[in-house]
């Protein structure tokens, strides 16, 4: 009995430390974004000054819009392409399918630093160069494998007889996909889309390589701002991003759980 209690206590302590390790820096940063002192000085004095001045920082605002725009377009493109690719990989047998499937994984593992360098060289080589369009292309390429992996995992739980049943009832390929297959994989598609959004919105390394002054994303802009000199505005914008990202991730987790239930 005593041992169980000790073990239980240790377990709780472990989880507590883990959560503290993960969240303490974030919480401190979030608190400091509401503190009057720009130098992390205590006592804590409440203010929303930094959020107000953030609103005046045109560069940061522009970069935020760029980031959102790119993240949303990346999400749409990579979700549509990724879901279509997953369906094709699921439905059809073709030459080189195994190789293709195997080739989807390495981009997830290759360091972004290397992918970014390669993209920079490649985009310059073919004349695209740097800028928002290059960043968008890069992000789609980065996000696509995630979508395919997540949607394919969901498709593994799909019963192929459902498509056959739909066809036997007179449904054409479009109706089968639209009414039977897509509703089933939708949780996977949504989860994949959220992944794609996160990959794009949080992307620093590849964006850094592909951005130009004026055509940049929020993480790159934050980095540039910190190098110039730290301001609590960074805390403020980071807090906003964290809230948005966490909400997205919680949504993802929810959809993944749905994936396991049905």
């Amino acid at each position, binding site marked *: 009995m005593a041992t169980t209690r000790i073990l239980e206590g240790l377990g709780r302590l472990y989880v507590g430390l883990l959560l503290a390790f993960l969240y303490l820096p974030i919480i401190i940063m979030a608190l400091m974004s509401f503190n009057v002192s720009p130098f992390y000085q205590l006592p804590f004095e409440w203010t929303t000054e930094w959020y107000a001045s953030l609103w005046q920082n045109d560069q940061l605002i522009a970069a935020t819009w760029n980031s959102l725009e790119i993240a949303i377009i990346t999400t749409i493109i990579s979700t549509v392409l990724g879901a279509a690719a997953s369906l094709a990989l699921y439905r059809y047998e073709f030459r080189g399918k195994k190789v293709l499937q195997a080739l989807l994984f390495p981009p997830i593992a290759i360091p972004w630093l290397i992918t970014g360098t390669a993209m920079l060289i490649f985009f310059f080589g073919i004349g695209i160069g740097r800028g928002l369009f290059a960043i968008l292309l890069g992000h789609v390429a980065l996000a696509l494998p995630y979508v395919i992996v997540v949607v394919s995992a969901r498709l593994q739980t799909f019963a192929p007889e459902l498509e056959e049943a739909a066809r*036997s009832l*007179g449904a054409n390929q479009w109706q089968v996909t639209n009414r*039977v297959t897509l509703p089933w994989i939708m949780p996977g598609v949504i989860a994949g889309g959220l992944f794609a959004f996160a990959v794009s919105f949080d992307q620093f390394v590849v964006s850094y390589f592909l951005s130009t002054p004026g055509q940049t994303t929020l993480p790159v802009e934050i980095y540039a701002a910190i190098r110039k000199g730290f301001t609590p505005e960074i805390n403020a914008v980071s807090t906003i991003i964290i809230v948005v990202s966490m909400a997205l991730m919680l949504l993802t987790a929810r959809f993944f759980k749905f994936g396991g239930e049905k």
Partner: protein
Amino acid sequence: MAGVKVSNVSRSFGAHKALDDVSIDFADGGFYALLGPSGSGKTTLLRQIAGFDFPDSGRIAIGGESVERVPVEKRQIGMVFQNYALFPNMSVADNVAFGLSVRGEAKATIATEVQRALDLVQLGKLGGRRPHQLSGGQRQRVALARAIVTKPRVLLLDEPLGALDKALRVDMQIELKRIQREIGITTIFVTHDQEEALTMSDRIGILRDGRLVQEGPPEEIYDRPQSEFAATFLGDANIFRGDATGNGIRLPDGTAIAAGAGATLTVGAKASCAVRPERIQISTGTEKPDAGNSNTLKGQVSKRIFAGNNSTYFVERQGQTLKVIVQNTGAERLAEGEDVVLRWSPESTVLIAA
């Protein structure tokens, strides 16, 4: 509604011949069972008729119209799958409505037809449920309603009752038969359950290794099997092997067995005789032989299994174990180890070419 004619259909998957020159005529309005062990090609044949897969050669006609290259969605068939394949994201009513809805039928028509189909399978009140809220038997009925609501030309069932427990299966057999009679649809169903095939169908086709072994009404196949395989796969049979004598066979030890039915064989050819276990009389040998049961063999009871309404005796005779089923009429039971005489009539004996 229409008949289905399968002519010389062959289908190979790589080196494996799944169907080898199969021809069957399914008459309009009939209830057919395709019976065979797994790998016999029965499901492959059903899938050719459905249009999920196309034959390498041969013809398939539904209602006299050639369909062997027509894809499934254009064949106007209804199909019930082994695991029901109900759409999990739709309600029961939406599942049943699917076939009408993809055709663009009017909403009011769909609602009426769906209700009629659900009433027919006695699920009129469950239209709002989701498939996962239903029992196995109810899912089966929904699958059936969904398959027939579009008024298909032929109804195909792939091991439809395989996933149900025994009691429910018997209920569904009766139910399925009732619905089939009511709408008079040509029905072809695949099963590996011989009892199901015997009790439900007007005709049975037995398949083995991609070939049609025998086809006919259940009684005919049971009483006059044309092969050892048909004899032992559909029901139980004692098989004796020997040389043809003209009206029976001679066993290696010289004993003659007379057959009243079956193949005509040249004298001396290798042949076998099949006898159903319930056709054999078993006695201690003290009783007088009666003239009708002229086939007689001696043996020894090695085992008796009592099953209430009948008993099965396993009788050893020269290294062969024979099976005899005796109805429980209250007569004296034989003990294990007892010497017995087996008698049966030539009419109960079918001669089969080896």
